[in-house]
């Protein structure tokens, strides 16, 4: 039985279709109910929906053999997993954003609000910039508006939320996309099934 952790939401639905095309369909997953686990014994596959940031934890700890997680989550938590494929979906950017009229003159400690404290710390450490990290868990865009921070480090997909709040992207730190990850031990003992999925998904990505 292959256990697959999918991120809840639109990205999860999109990547499920990719697994389905790879021959690991599970029709019950499309039923409208509150179930969290879906199994197709015939295909020996079990899917479960988890919070996107929890996918690497399920995979690292072997509750899931494989899963799909954003590069942002992988960089932030550095799980000990294999990163087998860039799925080329769920594309966005990790950016530094701030008020349109904000200019960092480098004269004082920069106040940075973010969910991604490790990514932000690494980025500014490489620049040699002294920062004060303010860890937030949601509505990050509020921080510079209320002067809680000078800038934010967050993912931006279209930039619409920033624009509506009079904010703009100041720097792009790195591009983000969804990655297929695997538990290290599962990769040894279920290599046939995992390799089959990787091969099929590689073909599907070519067609994107």
């Amino acid at each position, binding site marked *: 039985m292959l256990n697959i952790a999918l991120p809840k939401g639109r990205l999860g639905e999109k990547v499920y279709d990719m697994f389905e095309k790879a021959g690991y369909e599970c029709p019950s997953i499309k039923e409208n109910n509150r179930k969290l686990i879906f199994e197709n014994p015939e295909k020996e596959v079990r899917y479960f929906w988890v919070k996107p940031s929890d996918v690497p934890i399920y995979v690292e700890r072997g509750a899931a053999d494989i899963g799909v997680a954003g590069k942002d989550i992988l960089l932030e938590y550095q799980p*000990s997993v294999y990163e087998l494929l*860039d799925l080329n979906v769920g594309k966005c950017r990790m950016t530094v954003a701030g008020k349109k009229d904000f200019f960092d003159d480098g004269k004082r400690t920069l106040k940075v609000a973010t969910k991604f404290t490790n990514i932000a710390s690494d980025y500014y450490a490489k620049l040699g910039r002294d920062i004060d990290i303010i860890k937030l868990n949601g509505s990050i865009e509020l921080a510079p508006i209320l002067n809680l921070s000078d800038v934010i480090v967050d993912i931006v997909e279209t930039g619409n939320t920033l624009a509506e709040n009079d904010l703009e992207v100041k720097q792009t730190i790195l591009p983000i996309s969804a990655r297929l990850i695997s538990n290290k*031990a599962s990769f040894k*003992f279920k290599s046939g099934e995992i390799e089959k999925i990787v091969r099929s998904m590689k073909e599907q990505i070519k067609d994107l």
Partner: protein
Amino acid sequence: MIEESVLQFEEKVIFALRSLYRKHGYLPYKMSKFEEYELYLRNKDFLVSDRVIAFNDTNGKLMALKPDVTLSIIKNGEDVKGVKQKVYYNENVYRVSESTHRFKEIMQTGLECIGDIDIFDIYEVITLAAESLSRISDKFYIEISNMDVICSLISEFCDDSEFIAKAMGFISQKNAHDLKILCGQYGVSDEDNEKISLLISLYGDRNDVINGLLEIYDKDKIGNICRLSEMLDNSPFSDKIKFDFSVINDMNYYNGFVFKGFVDGIYCGVLAGGQYDNMMKKMDRNSGAIGFALYLDRLEELYSDKENYDIDCLLLYDDKTDLLDVLKETDKLTAEGISVSCQKNIPEKLRYKTAIDLRKGRE
């Protein structure tokens, strides 16, 4: 004589491994629980976690509860040309848990071969690692890599140390897509990137990996790998020992062959080892070394306590019961191999199969 049924799974493994290592001429290495703190301060990157429990000894010297065994073995070992020291250990070490971020006592067993080591010693240690895992489960793999070979193959295309470190990081993640971007950033051509990426796509059966490498690289560049693989063809665990270049350890300490062991049912590696000549040099030793550690605490994942009872028989008595009757009944049951707990009241949490009531006050 110890009855096997009373031993826990890890304890049975420890006994089996002791016997195995002794059979191959490895001597037991016993050491104090404490070591001078300075040893770990100087080599903190070598440790799995760099935090140690430190305390002042009665003479004022700063000591530590051992977070590692290998450093003590190197420190106390001989460094004489031609001499080879083969030891095994079974010790508790004290490290910070990755999950709780608090100190944890971890039972670790392993062996070290230090001195004038050759390819036979490398073969023997890897085969012993495989045999150690075979005592735990039938379903296991040892995956071998070679740090020197990986490093020299990568540096052929770009010798920038930052590039090599980052490329090795991506190889350890089997991350070919980000490796390709990295190659682009450092001006490595697509063709050369393909060659480096082989280190990710080639894994598994040793001969398949070697044949794949030989399509690109000269045999003299991977000579060590070919020689070891030929020797491993003779190992009884040959089909369980594979190549996988994603096994990468810290270059500052490890060199040559490094390996990891996986057991089906345990989500992470249970065994890790390799050659650490670079560590020896850092500690002013001229000889080489190879060893491995088996993390016994991770074996908990493999089994669950399937016993439904704590005890076979609960024997109840009270102040009016003739104690000789209690004694006789207990002797009779234990002689039949039945475990007995004599109690005056039924303990709330005790799970028992049957009960014998010798209480007289109830009549």
